[in-house]
């Protein structure tokens, strides 16, 4: 037998049955010679049993419906579903990008800059144009700040296209995250509430590229690049009606 003194902690560990067998035996031997300690240990053990038995029925009760874990997990997933739909929609678009994304004209062969930009613009349209609550982060009333903000973030002077001549009013804009860095998105609507999105960001490849049409799903648009800045205009109107608007955006941007 070791001669490590028996401590108060040992007595509790003895009661809780968590000692190593060897130590357990040592404590048992100690208790035989110490009736006071033995009485306490016996009392603590009784107490422990009493508590366990008194509380055991609670754990045996059937669970109330509010604690149905699988139901809670399901509800949580359902609550999250709008996000999932958005993610699913994005995924469909990406898959469309591989399988069915149609890039006509000079964009068809291009895997780089302009095609990516066109896709980013389409994503932005799909996510923000249907939003009735907060389609833009900064409203048209703050357009000066909006231009300042996105110009700072893009590290490029950004010109805000004015499309009133084409029947579209500026709603506002926001900064968009793309895999090529920040992009500025401007949104417009006409008297019928139809919306357009113009996306612009610095180009990594294809610093200059002629305007080319693109379409995917129910949106179509035009993308081009001038002097290192890429642009894409996307909407649900026909390509024929979007083309003159794209031309107007390009004309204004060139006058910076």
């Amino acid at each position, binding site marked *: 037998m070791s001669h490590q003194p028996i401590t108060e902690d040992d007595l509790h560990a003895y009661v809780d049955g968590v000692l190593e067998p060897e130590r357990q035996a040592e404590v048992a031997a100690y208790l035989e010679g110490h009736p006071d300690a033995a009485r306490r240990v016996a009392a603590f053990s009784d107490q422990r049993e009493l508590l366990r038995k008194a509380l055991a029925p609670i754990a045996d009760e059937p669970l109330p419906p509010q604690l149905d*874990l699988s139901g809670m997990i399901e509800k949580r997933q359902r609550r999250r579903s709008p996000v999932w739909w958005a993610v699913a929609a994005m995924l469909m678009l990406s898959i469309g990008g591989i399988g069915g994304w149609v890039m006509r004209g000079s964009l068809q062969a291009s895997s780089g800059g302009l095609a990516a930009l066109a896709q980013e613009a389409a994503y932005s349209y799909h996510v923000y144009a249907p939003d009735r609550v907060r389609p833009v982060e900064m409203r048209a009333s703050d357009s000066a700040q909006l231009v300042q903000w996105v110009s700072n973030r893009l590290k490029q002077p950004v010109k805000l296209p004015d499309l009133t001549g084409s029947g579209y009013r500026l709603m506002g804009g926001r900064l968009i995250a793309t895999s090529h860095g920040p992009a500025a998105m401007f949104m417009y609507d006409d008297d019928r509430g139809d919306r357009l999105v113009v996306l612009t960001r610095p180009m990594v490849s294809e610093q200059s590229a002629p305007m080319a049409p693109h379409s995917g799903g129910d949106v179509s648009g035009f993308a081009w690049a001038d002097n290192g800045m890429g642009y894409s205009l996307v909407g649900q109107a026909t390509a024929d009606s979007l083309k003159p608007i794209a031309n107007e955006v390009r004309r204004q941007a060139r006058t910076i």
Partner: protein
Amino acid sequence: MSDLLRQVEPVIPALRRYARALVRNRAAADDLVQDCLERAISNWGQRREGDPRPWLFTILHNLAVNQFRRIASRGKHIAIDEANEDDFGQDAVQEQKLMYQDVLDLLARLPEDQRAVLLLVAVEDLSYADAAKVLDIPLGTVMSRLSRARERLQREIEGTADGAAKKVVQLRSMK
């Protein structure tokens, strides 16, 4: 998520038992457990690998303590020992049941921190180290609180709760 279900569901009865013993009110206790499970679902990815029990008890304990604090700060604190005894079952006719009822009443008179240690260790079978994690206190404090909880409960049981307990020897200094 099936992982979550498989590991957490078996612990729910114990969580209910702990919550009920702490707050002594069925509805309030189950609300706490529900909160705890919601948090467990949201934070499942952040738990550490291994036995989820200490993690779940930590969430539950913190929720319970926050609730105690909120109630206290609203000034409407209902002392635990005055809580409705009916919550532990009305048909306490059998002698055995009365005895159980008595020990739960006495348990409720312990200071909250001592009660928590005693419940986690003696009823929920958490190791001393896990109890220390749940309560965010050093192991030595777990041991001293456990000792004080047992001594005090024993005095209560023996009906010598007048503080002038004849034979109580504090073997440990209070930490």
